[in-house]
């Protein structure tokens, strides 16, 4: 497992959790930084910091120390999860009604497709 600030420009990761003071964490989550969301490192500011991340169709800039407190895992796993759900076909509808995590990860994979 790595942290968001370690991703190079162009790389993506799936958000695992945030290790920040509660008010900050809550604010970030309402901006889309929730577990299972797909984050892509878009670009660094001219001075090298902050960095712009694409998440939930938005672009959000964070400083390095904030991004270093956000844990991510490699994005491929999410893509795989997306394929599995796709293969399950009809069942998806019922599945995600019960398990919000699937819905969330699916949502993230959708963006992943768009990002590509």
């Amino acid at each position, binding site marked *: 497992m790595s942290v968001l600030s370690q991703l190079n420009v162009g790389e993506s990761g799936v958000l695992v959790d945030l290790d920040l003071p509660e008010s*900050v964490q*809550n604010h970030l989550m*309402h901006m889309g930084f*929730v577990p299972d969301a797909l984050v892509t490192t878009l*670009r660094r500011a001219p001075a090298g910091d902050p960095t*712009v991340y694409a998440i939930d169709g938005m672009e959000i800039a964070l400083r390095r120390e*904030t991004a270093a407190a956000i844990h991510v895992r490699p994005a491929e796993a999410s893509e795989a999860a997306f394929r599995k759900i796709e293969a399950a076909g009809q069942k998806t509808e019922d599945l995600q009604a019960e398990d*919000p995590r699937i819905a*969330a990860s699916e*949502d993230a994979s959708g963006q992943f497709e768009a990002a590509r």
Partner: protein
Amino acid sequence: MSGCCASPAFEAPQPPQPSGQLRTVVLIGPPNSGKSTLFNRLTGLRQKVANFPGVTVEQRMGQMAGVGREDLTLIDLPGIYSLDPYSEDARVSIDVLRGQMEGTPKPDAVLLVMDSLHLTRQLMLAAPVLAMGLPTLVLLNMSDLMEERGGSIDALKLARELGAPVAKISAVNGGGMGAIPLFLHQHTDRAAAQPLTLPILGNAASAHSWAAQVSRRTDYRAPLSVEGTRKIDNVLLHRIWGPLLFLVVVVGVFEVVFSIGQPLSDGFGGILADIGNLARPLLPAGWVQSLILDGAWKGISSVLVFLPQILLLFLFIGVLEDSGYLSRAALIADRGMRSIGLNGKAFIPLLSAYACAVPAIMATRTIENKRDRLATILVTPFMTCSARLPVYMLLIAAFVPNITYLHGFLGLQTVVMLSLYLAGFVAALATARLLKSSILKSSETPFILELPQYRMPTLRSLALRVVDRARVFLRNAGRVILAVTLVLWVLAHLPVMHTASGAYSTPELAESVIGRLGHFIEPAIAPLGFNWKIGIGLLSSVLAREVMVSTMGTLYGSDPGTEALNLQTALHHDLSLGGALALMIFFAFAMQCTSTIAVVRRETNSWKWPIAQFVYMLALAWVAAFAVNHLVMAFGG
């Protein structure tokens, strides 16, 4: 300049219509979702709308004239991500929404505005807002753009999911607006609301997964993100081109203000002088003519002359704000701002302060850290606002030779002007650094900045800004400056004396009431190279900086020795080059603006800060002017 902080037009509520108790409707939604554009459309009010999150920083009210319901009051609120306040502007929204804001009526119905380009995330706000149980209409704004880009949503299914009516609209071009009066008609009675049971959302993660489920069940397909914004950012946020372009843009503004604005102002000045000359034979000779033409008209027109240049500056700042560039400027500036203890968000008010410090100080509400916000408020008046322009331009035109360098690309006058802007900027940064390393020291708050997509500024919105600004400027000239110049003229002609032959005569300017006042403060300003006449100008400019120019116009107009001269020539009687440069630097640093003092008092909720700020800036202005005057004298200037 006052007026930029004018309270919103808010007429007395009209008698309630027989249809019910619905009186107050509130607009709420996430930042940058288009609430203010909708507000303008619904009320016909012209609120400032720009393309960066956090434009609206306080509640605004207007009558819903745009949909024929003038009996209803509409309140526009700062954008929020959730019902947990993270910054000062979000607290305002939440308090108003809950009916806990003093002086603001409790809302009877809610218009929940969401940006349909990013609906999944925006839906997170829907649950807590709907759970409040007020009649709510959900408005999917920018739905035309969403569909254009291949997105879609089943609004009917969404309405069923949310238990509230949903309408697709476009606030920019007015599409789908018919749903709003229809909704208001149905919900004229507050009691008719049926609160819906929505899942209780304890934390952001569960709120997000609920939103994701809802958007899935309603067949929401997010539009393809346009590559345009990213392509533009590839250049504007480029490691080398980004900062360089930023500089070129800033220098370019002042070139434009000078090279295009100056001829416009000169032409306008000629017209104003002609009006005065045409009116002269129409007025009875004597004191009436002198009061109106030499006092009032000369004073007012000496300031009015700068209107074209100020409007150009506002037009330019307007383009920066509306396009979405300001957020990028904040991003570029973050590293630098960090070294003085602030973050990039503090840069946005500083940049807006080039137009006027009053709205800029209000824009600091988006800064989450209280101490950072206070530090930003305290340094914002150092930024060169448009009210300093008339003073600078008058003095530069009068004292700085029009020499150009680099084949005419860069003029010496522009260089002096840019140096003054730079002086203000450096003073702001240095003061911020001082504050953040001493009394306002705080632990760092994370920098979280949303970068909106670029939008083409609409001609309509730019034109409205310029017209509004012109109105504020003219109103100022009509009230403050007229009053000041009239009082000055009277004081310049008192006391009335008897001559030996028994006739009445007016005193020499130096012997008049105002002349004695000027002489009284002369010892304090003489070391700066200013005499008593300049002193009178300084005293009057505490009201607003541009009053200085009209004061000098009135003073010279009522002095027989200088009344035939134009203002630039007349100034040479009272200022050396050293004094003129000292005067400019004095204006760069001193806090001569009652509107700014008032807004700092309001935003900090105490007199302590504005007084400390005024004294500090005055002291700095005095020391800097002293240094400049003596340096120029030492080098034989």
